[in-house]
């Protein structure tokens, strides 16, 4: 009995190839797999909660329209992160620099332990404010390190920079966040 040694059909690369050959179900699988992560990245980058679903949708739309540009040197998710980051930058410019950070629309704290929830929300708000105050590349490199666990090589490919520059951006981000948040 021969065992299939072909590529895993569930990988992002295999799903992307299936989508390119006309399988729309593959696109749905990629959306299902990455939606939550992209939403969190956008939220951490300063997008308002009410905007996140539209931004996620737009990020996927742009990604599928430009799928031939995904070179697979970076993971599909980190490539999506870079698209979402550009989208947020465009949105920020469109709103003429008005901040997108919306802290007022957060959920009410859990009444079972209101003090703990409040403290957690405050810590989260400080972190988001700190991130929002960083230059864009510093913020993106930091979030790719923390939310994706990406190495500098992968970040460099996704953001179109060098691993050395990505490392420098990360260390600047950490230094500034320590001053603002810790």
């Amino acid at each position, binding site marked *: 009995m021969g065992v299939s040694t072909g590529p895993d059909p569930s990988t992002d690369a295999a799903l992307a190839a299936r989508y390119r050959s006309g399988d729309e179900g593959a696109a749905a699988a990629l959306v299902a797999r990455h*939606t939550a992560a992209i939403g969190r*990245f956008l*939220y*951490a980058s300063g997008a308002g909660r009410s905007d996140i679903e539209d931004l*996620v949708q737009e990020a996927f*739309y742009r990604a599928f329209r430009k799928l031939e540009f995904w070179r697979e040197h970076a993971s599909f998710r980190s490539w999506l992160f870079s698209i979402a980051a550009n989208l947020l930058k465009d949105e920020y410019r469109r709103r003429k620099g008005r901040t997108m950070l919306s802290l007022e629309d957060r959920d009410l704290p859990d009444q079972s332990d209101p003090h703990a929830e409040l403290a957690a929300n405050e810590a989260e708000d400080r972190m988001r404010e700190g991130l929002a105050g960083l230059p864009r590349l510093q913020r993106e490199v930091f979030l790719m390190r*923390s*939310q994706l666990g990406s*190495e500098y090589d992968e970040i460099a490919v996704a953001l179109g920079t060098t691993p050395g520059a990505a490392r420098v951006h990360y260390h600047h981000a950490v230094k500034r966040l*320590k001053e603002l948040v810790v």
Partner: protein
Amino acid sequence: MNCERLSDRMPGVLAGRDHWSREDEEHLVVCADCRSEWQLLVRGSALGAELPGLDVSRISAEVQRRLALAKRADRNRRRGWLGLGLAAAAALVLVIARPRSTGEAPASPIAEQALVLPVIELDSLSAAELQAVLETMEPPMGTNSTLDAPSLQDLDDHQLERVLRSLEG
């Protein structure tokens, strides 16, 4: 313990690809710099974890609807360009194939055949009528006398008489 090396490993530990050794953990306890960096990364990774779930099926349906529309628009755009290209090619062919109004006779085989087609209407004419028709036509180039050959009008009486005598035998 090298703080830089520990810093490089932090994302891997966060993502579950790596883990702290006892030595790493001891370093994190004593090194405030590494500890605060680690805390920042943990906080960053937790951002948005409490976000209410996004509606994946709605996002997916809307993305696919927009992609289908975009594909249709791309197809129509390609057809438009193809039609425009074909029209331009047809116009070019017409311009090239059109015979020039002045200059040499058409060189295409069809044009040459047309020149040798018999003129049926002339068959019914008498010899005198045919002669009259011929006189109205200019002789074809190259069949006429050369420019320096004298015509009958150029001859004097004596020369004309010699020509007539030679014709009469």
